[in-house]
């Protein structure tokens, strides 16, 4: 009984204290979608829309940091807000033609995000195939199946409460995993602490202060070791683990300062590779035709001034090289799949008319 209570307490603390921001996004979003999903009764549309906007703002607040606003961040937030709001409209809209149009809006704003991610060929392909072909075909079928007045299909939902809860539990878990893997705030705080400690070491002279500073340096080394344990395979992590042992044997300010400075540079390497998948130790040789092989360590990548790995500017040419070397078989299979799907679609759609009784000529 006591264990049950303690488990419940841990769950409540986990949801409401440690991760209250994610929980707030989940609750507001689920309530908004539940209120807005179509149903025959009169709905509280304004209330639901307000809650939905609140959820979008809370999710944005999860991401916003102290970073300066530049064109990239502004465009990112604009496009992603459009995508998410249009996605919410697609799910909750009663009129299916309007739902198709908001799907087109989702696709176009994801195209904007692709452009920010340096994928211009995909922007063209997605806009033409999705927003052009697929949405138009959907609208065409909608016009064929036009219905008058309220219908079961558009004005009722299947289990709106359960599906909203299921969807937002999935979202909460995804957000939690992303936060656990990509949060660099503890590491950044550690780097700032190191800077201030090194500054104090340069100024200090008295013996009592010296002992105190050395103690703090050892504490920082412990913290660095803890951070290094999260990414054990990197050379930088191995250095930080060793440095923790060395910090205990240093009793002078000068060497300790050097040690801290070198630990700081190694920790920056650690920060650059947060969240990246590391290849195993026995490196498999992979092709370099689609850019640097995935068996390379992330410190080996060539980086642009913003710190991200560099991508070739000739996107289409390099994408073509990747497709027709590494993925040649998959391209052939994709072509075959398209052919088979075309034949299948014609066969399925024709069956209805072929089976209907033919009118006899007099």
């Amino acid at each position, binding site marked *: 009984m006591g264990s049950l209570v303690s488990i419940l307490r841990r769950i409540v603390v986990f949801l409401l204290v440690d991760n209250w921001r994610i929980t707030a996004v989940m609750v507001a979003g689920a309530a908004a979608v539940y209120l807005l999903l179509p149903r*025959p009764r009169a709905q509280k549309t304004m209330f639901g829309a307000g809650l939905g906007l609140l959820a979008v703002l809370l*999710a944005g607040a999860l991401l916003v940091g102290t*970073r300066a606003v530049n064109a*990239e*961040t502004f465009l990112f937030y604009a496009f992603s807000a459009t*995508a*998410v709001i249009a*996605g919410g409209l*697609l*799910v909750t809209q009663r009129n*299916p033609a309007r*739902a*198709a149009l908001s799907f087109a809006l*989702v*696709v176009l704003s*994801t195209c904007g*995000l692709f452009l920010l991610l340096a994928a211009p060929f*995909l922007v063209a392909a997605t806009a033409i*195939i999705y927003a052009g072909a*697929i949405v138009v*075909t*959907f609208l065409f079928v909608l016009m*064929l*199946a036009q*219905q008058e007045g309220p*219908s*079961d*299909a*558009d004005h*009722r*939902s*299947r289990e709106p409460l*359960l*599906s909203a809860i*299921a969807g937002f539990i999935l979202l909460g878990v995804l957000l939690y995993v*992303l936060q656990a893997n*990509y949060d*660099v705030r503890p590491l950044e705080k550690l780097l700032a602490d190191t800077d201030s400690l090194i500054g104090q070491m340069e100024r200090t002279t008295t013996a009592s202060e010296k002992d105190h500073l050395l103690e703090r340096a050892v504490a920082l080394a412990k913290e660095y070791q803890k951070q290094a344990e999260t990414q054990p395979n990197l050379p930088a992590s191995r250095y930080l683990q060793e440095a923790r042992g060395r910090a205990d044997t240093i009793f002078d300010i000068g060497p300790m300062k050097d040690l801290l400075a070198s630990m700081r540079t190694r920790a920056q390497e650690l920060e650059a590779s947060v*969240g990246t998948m590391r290849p195993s130790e026995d490196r498999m040789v992979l092709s370099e035709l*689609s*850019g*640097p092989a*995935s068996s390379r360590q992330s410190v080996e990548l060539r*980086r642009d001034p*913003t710190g991200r*790995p560099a*991508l070739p500017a000739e996107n289409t040419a390099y*994408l073509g090289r*990747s497709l027709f070397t590494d*993925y040649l078989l*998959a391209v052939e299979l*994709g072509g075959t*799949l398209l052919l088979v*799907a*075309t034949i*299948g*679609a*014609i066969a*399925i*759609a024709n069956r209805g008319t072929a089976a209907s009784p033919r009118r006899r000529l007099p």
Partner: protein
Amino acid sequence: MSALPLHHYLVVGAVLFALGMIGFLARRNLIVMFLSAEMMLQGVALNLVAFARYRGNLQGQSFVLFILTVAACEAGIALALVLTLYRSRHTLDVSVWQDLRESNLEPTIDEEPLPAEPEAPPEPKLTPAGIEPVHREETSHV
């Protein structure tokens, strides 16, 4: 000058995926269900392109091209199936196909009535052709 971190894009992808899942589970119109499934694919594609950008290679972008291919095939076949289904039951509601459910499950029956159709505004009446409309007598003589 620092770039946006990778997880910003992953969060947007996750939100699109979750919204698409809710739409697929909750909506009853066949076409809206397929649109929601396509939105889930968009979320995944966004993740792949973001990973490609932050790893500096083009494998993620190649994957998205294959996603596009499969999505186009899927849309073609799905719409052909939707047309066939519509022809046999004359509605896009998936619940008319609930007789395909497992034998131990209860059928879902809609209890609440649908809202009444809003009344159309009355059409304007014109004077029948060939009859001279009634004039009022002119009141002013010049």
